[in-house]
C-alpha cells in the first residue's frame, strides 16, 4: 500500500467520499429498480465494491452519479442474467402490499406506483428510475445506460405509458 502514488490515493479517497454522499440516492435507485426491496441494499453494496475496484475509470469531469448508477445498472443486469441462467424465475413482487386500513390516499398511491414499477420490463424500469426517481437529465440517463438518447426517450415514453395505464 505504501507504494501507491499520492495522486491515485487521493482519487480513491475522492471516490469514497462521493459514494458516501450518494448513498441515500443509491439506495433509492436500488429500491426503484429491484423487484424485491430486500435486494436493493445488496445491489448497492456490490456496486460500491465494484466502483472501488474501478475507481480509476471515473473522470471528475463526468457526473459521479451517472457513473455510479451505471455500475448499479450493470450489476443488476448481471444478476438478472445469472438468475435466468440458473433457471430461477423471478416471482412478481408481493411484499409491501399489506395495506393498513387507515392508509391515507397518498400512501395508497405510493404503494400502487411501487407495484406498477415492478411490472415494467427491465429496460423501461431503469429509464423511469433514472429520470423520474433520480431526476437525471436525458443525457445523463442515456450515459448511465450506455444507450443513445433516442433509445432512452423511447424506453422512458413506453414505461410511462404503461405506468399511466396501470394507475388510471
Amino acid at each position, binding site marked *: 500500500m505504501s507504494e501507491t502514488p499520492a495522486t491515485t490515493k487521493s482519487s480513491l479517497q475522492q471516490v469514497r467520499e462521493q459514494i458516501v454522499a450518494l448513498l441515500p440516492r443509491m439506495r433509492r435507485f436500488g429500491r426503484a429498480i429491484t423487484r424485491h426491496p430486500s435486494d436493493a441494499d445488496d445491489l448497492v453494496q456490490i456496486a460500491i465494491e465494484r466502483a472501488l475496484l474501478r475507481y480509476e475509470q471515473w473522470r471528475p469531469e463526468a457526473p459521479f452519479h451517472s457513473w455510479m448508477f451505471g455500475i448499479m445498472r450493470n450489476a443488476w443486469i448481471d444478476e438478472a442474467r*445469472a438468475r435466468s441462467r440458473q433457471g430461477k424465475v423471478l416471482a412478481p413482487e408481493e411484499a409491501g402490499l399489506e395495506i393498513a386500513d387507515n392508509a391515507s390516499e397518498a400512501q395508497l398511491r405510493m404503494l400502487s406506483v411501487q407495484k406498477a414499477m415492478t411490472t415494467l420490463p427491465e429496460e423501461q424500469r431503469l429509464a423511469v428510475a433514472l429520470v423520474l426517481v433520480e431526476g437525471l437529465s436525458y443525457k445523463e440517463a442515456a450515459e448511465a445506460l450506455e444507450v443513445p438518447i433516442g433509445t432512452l426517450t423511447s424506453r422512458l415514453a413506453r414505461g410511462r405509458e404503461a*405506468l399511466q395505464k396501470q394507475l388510471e
Partner: protein
Amino acid sequence: MQFSDEILMAYADDEVDADLRRQIEAAMALDPSLAARIAKHRGLRADVGAAFNGVLDEPIPDRLLDAATSKTAPVTDLNAARVAKQRAAHPRRWSWVEWTSIAASLVIGILAGRTALQPSHSDLFATNASGVVARGELAAALTDQVGAPKDAQVRIGLTFRATSGEYCRTFATASAAGFACRETNAWQVRALSEGAAGSKSGDYRMAATELPPAILAAVEQAMAGEALDQEQERAARARDWTK
C-alpha cells in the same frame, strides 16, 4: 400543430430547447387538451418520485458505510471478517451477494496490498500495472497443465472462457487458490484467496471443489458457457490460449 407524446413528455421533463418550448406553449394556449396531456406527464413524474423519496430519510445501514469507507485489510483477514460478519448480520436469500462482494474484496485486497503478498508466494505471483500476474511454476502450470499432474506444486482445476472471451483457469497451491485469465502476455490473476489448502485428492477434476466458495462463485460469475473438457483444453493450449 401536432405534437407527439414523446415531445410533450420531453417538455414536461424540461428537456426541449427554447424554440420548441415556445411553440408548445403557444399551442397549449389554444388547445387545453395539450395542457392536460402535459399535466398528466408531470403528475406521473411527481407520483413516481414520491413513491421512492421516503428511502432518502431512512438511516444508512452500517454495512454500506463500511463498504464505502473501510480501509482494505490483508486479504485473508478481510475475507474471514466479511464472511463472518455477513453470515451473522445478514442472512440472505441469495448467495450471489455474499460471494460477489467477497470476491470483489479479495481483489481489492490484492490490488491495494501489492506489497503485502506473502513472501512465500513471490515465486508464484508478480504485480504489473493492472494487478497480479502468475509467474514461475504457477504460470507454467496455467500454460501447460492438462490432465492430472503428478506431485505438482500447482493444480489446475477448471478451464473456461470468460464472458469477455479469454481463457481462464482455476488453480490451487498448498496455500492459495484462485483463477487467472490469459491476457496478451500473462495470466492475470482475477481472484485469489490465500490460506486455501489444496487437497491431496487424485482426481484433478475434483479440484474445483477445493476452491473456497468465494472463488468458485467468482468463477461462476466470470464464466461464459460450460467448462472445457480435456480435448478442448488441449486445443486451446495448442493455440496458446488466444481468444
